């Protein structure tokens, strides 16, 4: 069972994209999202897709890792395509299957939305593929810092995110251990329909949650023993900062992306 680990996990290859500041990458991901939703035709979408493809190539991340992110959303993409392109007994159609039919306009709309989702997912997966969890949460903290003026506990949120990232593999291991223990006692996880399979996991979730709560309690004690008292007065070993080149890349490429979305 490997459901949790893998998707969008940091790949520490060495590339310009890896060296770009995390906050700049978050800014670029936001610009890409904006551009994708502004783009009104295939021309704009095509340029944005090409830009993302270029970013993937320059990131030197194996395509397999990018594809893993896509696997998770393939259902949404296929559903979008079908939901938009299928019509009930239309006058003209490209292809008829009984009363259902595919018509050209619907296919165009479906393809447009599907490509939009694909480009969006690849672009944002690239962010987590090229940024280590520490840098990502540090970058998010800096991006969100203005919100602390509105009394949003930005530092605590970033700490929570860091701990969540730290415990994803540990929790996956724990789940695996419980599954194996249940299997050893005769539980069956891979037979039957989807409902039966889902029900087979209930005896896994209960001990898993029990473990998580116990661990959360122990972790809180350990953090207290190491003098954690909220983020006030805390310093960071790696105080990362936007350099000139990060600003330049973010503003330059970001503006270009948004311009593509606006005009095409």
């Amino acid at each position, binding site marked *: 069972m490997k459901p949790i680990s893998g998707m969008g996990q940091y790949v*520490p290859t060495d590339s310009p994209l890896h060296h770009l500041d995390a906050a700049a990458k978050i800014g670029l991901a936001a610009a890409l999202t904006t551009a994708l939703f502004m783009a009104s035709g295939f021309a704009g979408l095509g340029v944005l897709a090409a830009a993302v493809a270029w970013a993937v190539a320059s990131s030197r991340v194996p395509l397999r890792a990018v594809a893993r992110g896509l696997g998770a959303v393939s259902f949404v993409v296929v559903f979008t395509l079908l939901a938009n392109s299928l019509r009930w007994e239309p006058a003209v159609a490209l292809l008829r299957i009984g009363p259902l039919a595919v018509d050209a306009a619907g296919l165009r709309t479906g393809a447009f939305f599907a490509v939009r989702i694909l480009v969006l997912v690849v672009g944002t997966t690239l962010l987590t593929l090229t940024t*280590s*969890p*520490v840098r990502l949460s540090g970058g998010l903290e800096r991006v969100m810092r203005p919100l602390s003026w509105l009394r949003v506990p930005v530092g605590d949120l970033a700490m929570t995110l*860091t*701990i969540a*990232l*730290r415990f994803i*593999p*540990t929790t996956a*291991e724990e789940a695996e251990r419980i599954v194996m223990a249940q299997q050893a006692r005769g539980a069956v996880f891979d037979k039957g329909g989807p409902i039966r399979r889902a029900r087979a996991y209930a005896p896994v979730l209960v001990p898993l949650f029990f473990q998580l709560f116990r*661990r959360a309690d*122990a*972790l809180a*004690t*350990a*953090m*207290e*023993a*190491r*003098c*954690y*008292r909220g983020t006030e*007065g*805390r*310093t*960071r*070993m*790696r*105080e990362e900062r936007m350099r000139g080149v990060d600003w330049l890349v973010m503003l330059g490429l970001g503006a270009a992306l948004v311009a593509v979305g606006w005009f095409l």
Partner: protein
Amino acid sequence: MLEFAEVSFAYPTATAPALDGVSFSLEPGQLLVVVGANGSGKSTLARLCDGLLTPGGGRVLVDGLDTADVSLVWDIRVKVGMVFQDPDDQIVGTTVDDDCAFGPENLGLPPEEIVARVAEALTSVGMDGLERREPHLLSEGQKQRLAIAGALAMGPRYLVFDEPSAMLDPAGRRSAIAIIERLAHEQGHGVLLVSHDAADVARADRALALSGGCVVFEGAPEDLLADAALLRACGLATGSMGVLGERLRALGLAVPVGALEAESVVDALWP
């Protein structure tokens, strides 16, 4: 000096006290081992050392600072480092060096100083070269050494270990106890080690045994190891080498009670 003076403690939900009139002291450079059966109050005692729990009666003083004084609690936690049983319960960072930096970051130290402390702490537990490794890719033994480094990076004078090797295999256990011994005897930390392992007792300077929250033994480790009934009451097994040593002593051979590993028995027989 870390000092317990007539310390009692009861959990709010419990009927009997977990600790009752416990007194002892720990000097820097000294390795004190605390033993006792399950539920005898060892973990409670450990948590009282740095103010995670505060005594219901009596006082706990760390270099003269009273743990009951809430304004001193952070100063005390800098002086007393804690390492718990399960390393996964205490590793916070997503990489080795980030985790090690967690304590110094909380103290608000400048980045250069944090970097220096992290490097020093990781070196002293033999983890150089693993700085960028993610914790879940470490062995259990390495995880526990990281937990020790995390406590060391705070710059503590005293270290409290609550069964640090309970989750480890024999090799991991030996390397953990070797590090703990070095921290006390070479680096001059005052170390309180809660343990279920008679081999740890043999390496300590002093031993303390708890039963039902009371101190039932305090003194030289050899005297504790020589008392078979007390060892059993504390749930300590001396292992096959302990039994062998006992039989050899019955034959009149000079094998010390602290010789609990094959090497030390051999050394005793053929000096």
